[in-house]
């Protein structure tokens, strides 16, 4: 957990609230964001100071640096590498490169498990639930499949040595 006064990657609380206001609430264009920040800077420069955000690029950089529940988007290009028919016209997809956008699933899963909002609503182990004698099925971890996958019975012989 972060400290209450830790607004990183934003420079300050004002920086965070400014970002939220221009980006999420007002949805200002990049041009308007730059204009606003230039005016803001003009009032601060005589006092040897700068606004919490320099321009729209700086704003996007700060947003992209947010770590909470954020996993970087990565991109790769996939292309068919198999044989092409010599005689007939080949379909377009055989020669086109396709962008695949993805995020590291391992990191995404870690974030889900670390999410404070889900506290108390995560089953860490498989379980069996009964209503009297009757088995109750509810969440995935209460099912037979989860139980079989994660429980292994070891048979031990009781052999008292005399």
């Amino acid at each position, binding site marked *: 957990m972060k400290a209450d006064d830790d607004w990183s990657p934003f420079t300050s609380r004002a920086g965070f609230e400014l970002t939220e206001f221009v980006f999420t609430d007002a949805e200002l264009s990049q041009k308007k964001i730059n204009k606003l920040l230039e005016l803001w800077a003009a009032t601060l420069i005589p006092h040897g100071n700068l606004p919490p955000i320099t321009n729209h690029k700086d704003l996007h950089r700060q947003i992209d640096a947010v770590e909470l529940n954020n996993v970087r988007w990565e991109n790769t290009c996939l292309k068919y590498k198999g044989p092409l028919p010599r005689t007939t016209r080949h379909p*377009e997809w055989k020669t086109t490169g*396709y962008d695949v956008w*993805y995020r590291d699933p391992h990191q995404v899963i870690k974030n889900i*498990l670390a999410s404070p909002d*889900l506290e108390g609503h995560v089953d860490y182990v498989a379980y069996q639930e009964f209503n009297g004698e009757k088995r109750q*099925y*509810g969440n995935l971890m209460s099912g037979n499949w989860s139980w*079989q996958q994660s429980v*292994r019975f070891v048979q031990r012989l009781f052999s008292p040595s005399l």
Partner: protein
Amino acid sequence: MAAIRTFRATFVFAEFITPASQDIIAEDLSTHGSMFIPIILGSDKTTVSVATGQNDFHPLYLSIGNVQNHIRRAHKNALVLIGFLPIPKG
């Protein structure tokens, strides 16, 4: 990067299939002491146009079986968008 419509996940799991022993994770001793995390992947027919324009993509979502059902359906952090799969044109 793209406008995604609200996605509600429901899934069905079969109780009657008994996996063969080589498909049971607990039979692999090197997994003992680890947490069992079933991965749930989903996609749908909705295509999204990403800002760059030309291509349509299928969104790919991930959740884990450890999250209780009522939360997975209700909470945005329990179902995460992890990919955009391009749709090739014929």
